[in-house]
């Protein structure tokens, strides 16, 4: 700005530095605590400078919690959710925006309403559905009388097989895809694409799939990056849902779930091994942190446009 305000400028920097301290000191303390030995980490107040036990602590934390397979599971889930969300959002928004049929506004609203209720609020019944995914359809068949009619006509009783998603990757991934965030983002994007593009493509004889694949998808790359970063962080950080549906922790446990098991303290009658706990915490929070740091531009863009 035009004016000279030396005192206010110093004050501004002071305030901003205080903000920085407030926001980053907890992360720094986690790091410092993870580099000291048991005795140092429990002295009050703890030193503010890293110690020399880093390698030992991290190796121990990694081995004790079996972070190898858990990190891999977290990656599988995060990438599954991200890819699934982008794919489903892109095609469903395409159907709503570029096709003209009767129910498209109804469908749009049916999908849009899901923004209102996050998974945590409907956690109990969603868990019951995940325990047997085909049950809703079985009950629909029974309730509408289709099974009775078929039973009377053909003499066969329709029983859909039981399909439990507990302790599986599909159970971890699918319910997280079933919301409208991405669809809404893609719809907004399609609406900004000029009509002339579709016109030209039609003129040149391109069908709907060709137009989607060769014109729209390449145009939506930034959109994809934005949605991708948001979904990666969101799905990596899931806690309650995996905690409920995964009991087979050895095979399907995720890294964030593991945090519950490394809480030290009198709760489990163990000595407070905070250095190991903090090493584990830092390892769990690193992948999404790196995504946010390196993909910041897309990340901010995605955040601002999905929620508005």
């Amino acid at each position, binding site marked *: *700005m035009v*004016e000279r*305000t030396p005192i206010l400028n110093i004050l*501004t*920097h002071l305030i901003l530095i205080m*903000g920085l301290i*407030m*926001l*980053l000191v*907890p*992360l720094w303390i*986690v790091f410092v*605590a993870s580099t000291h030995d048991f005795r140092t980490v*429990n002295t*009050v107040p703890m030193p503010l400078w890293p110690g020399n036990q880093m390698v030992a602590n991290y190796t121990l934390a990694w081995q004790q919690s079996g972070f190898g397979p858990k990190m891999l599971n977290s990656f599988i889930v995060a990438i599954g959710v991200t890819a699934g969300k982008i794919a*489903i959002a892109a095609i*469903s928004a395409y*159907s*709503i*925006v*570029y*096709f*003209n*049929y009767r129910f498209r506004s109804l*469908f*749009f609203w*049916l*999908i849009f309403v899901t923004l209102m209720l*996050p998974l945590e*609020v409907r956690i*109990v*019944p*969603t868990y*019951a*559905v995940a325990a047997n*995914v085909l049950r*809703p359809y079985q009950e629909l068949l029974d309730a509408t009388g289709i099974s009775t009619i078929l039973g009377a006509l053909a003499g066969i009783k329709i029983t859909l097989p039981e399909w439990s998603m507990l302790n599986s990757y599909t159970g971890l991934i*699918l*319910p997280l895809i079933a919301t409208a965030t991405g*669809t809404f983002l893609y*719809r907004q994007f*399609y609406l900004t694409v000029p*009509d002339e593009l*579709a016109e030209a493509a039609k003129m040149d004889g391109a*069908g709907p*799939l060709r137009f989607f694949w060769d014109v729209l998808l390449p145009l939506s790359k930034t959109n994809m990056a934005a949605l991708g970063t948001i979904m990666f*962080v969101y799905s990596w950080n899931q*806690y*309650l849902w995996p905690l409920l549906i995964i009991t087979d922790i050895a095979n399907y446990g995720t890294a*964030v779930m593991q*945090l*519950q098991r490394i809480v030290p303290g009198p709760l489990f009658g163990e000595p*407070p091994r905070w250095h190991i706990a903090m090493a584990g*915490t830092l390892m*769990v*929070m690193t992948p999404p942190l790196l995504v*946010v740091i390196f993909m*910041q531009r897309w990340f*901010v863009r995605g955040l601002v446009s999905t*929620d508005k």
Partner: protein
Amino acid sequence: MTGKRVTFSNTWLAALLIAPQLLLVFTFFYWPAGEALYWSFTLEPPFGGENQWVGWQNFKTVFEDPLYWNSVRISVIFALSSTALAMGIALILATFVDRQLPGYQAYRFMYFWPYAVAAPAVGLAFRFIFAPDAGFVSALNQWYPGIWNPARDGFDAVVLITLANAWSMVAYNFIFFLAGLQSIPRSLNEAAAMDGSGVLRRMADIQFPLLAPTFFFLVVINLTDSFVNSFGIVDITTAGGPARATDLMVYKIYSDGFKGKDYSLAAAQSLVLMLLVISLTFIQFRYVERRVHYT
């Protein structure tokens, strides 16, 4: 208008493209939401069999339970105070970053980081930093023994989860406040400067009033988020204790439903929480429609 002037007419293809999303939404959203409604009006007989219709009885049980009102009271206090704290700090930081003094990009860059940290990781970090016998805040106890102990004192526990929640939400609010500030035309600020108003005067009379839409949007988002996403923090830091001092609504649903195995009671509570979240969202939609644009 949801569509385009130029459209394709292949209805089968359109149905095929939207089918996966509709199937997912039906299976994991509408059916569970409907089931919550059904369960909250029925009871499972103790020896198995079909659920029996009991009308409002589950809600009566919930509303007559002082433990439930305890949990509502704590949730409201928790949501309001962490929202106020997170938004206040974020607003100050965003307005000063928006002055764009040399080096402002560095602040902007690092203020985002806490957003990436998972709620339970925030919980674990704060549990350590604020532990009564290790970390930093415990120095208070050396000075005046017993003044700080979130494992024993309910008030301390609420302070702990509020701070942790506010810390994790500052980054999100900061991003939106900054985006809001940057959408205010620079010329307005310059005109005011020409008229002789100083930096602080311009913040109070130009920037804050024009941020009002962003502000109200964030109030709704923050409240919803504190009601809904607090599970990770509470579970790791206090597990609802001590003596139910941090038994937030989401946590109570979880413990009644999955530890107590009482689906009907949990469903009734879920329904109340759903209505709360829906009404908050509804306020937001009404307001979003009337959203003001300046450019």
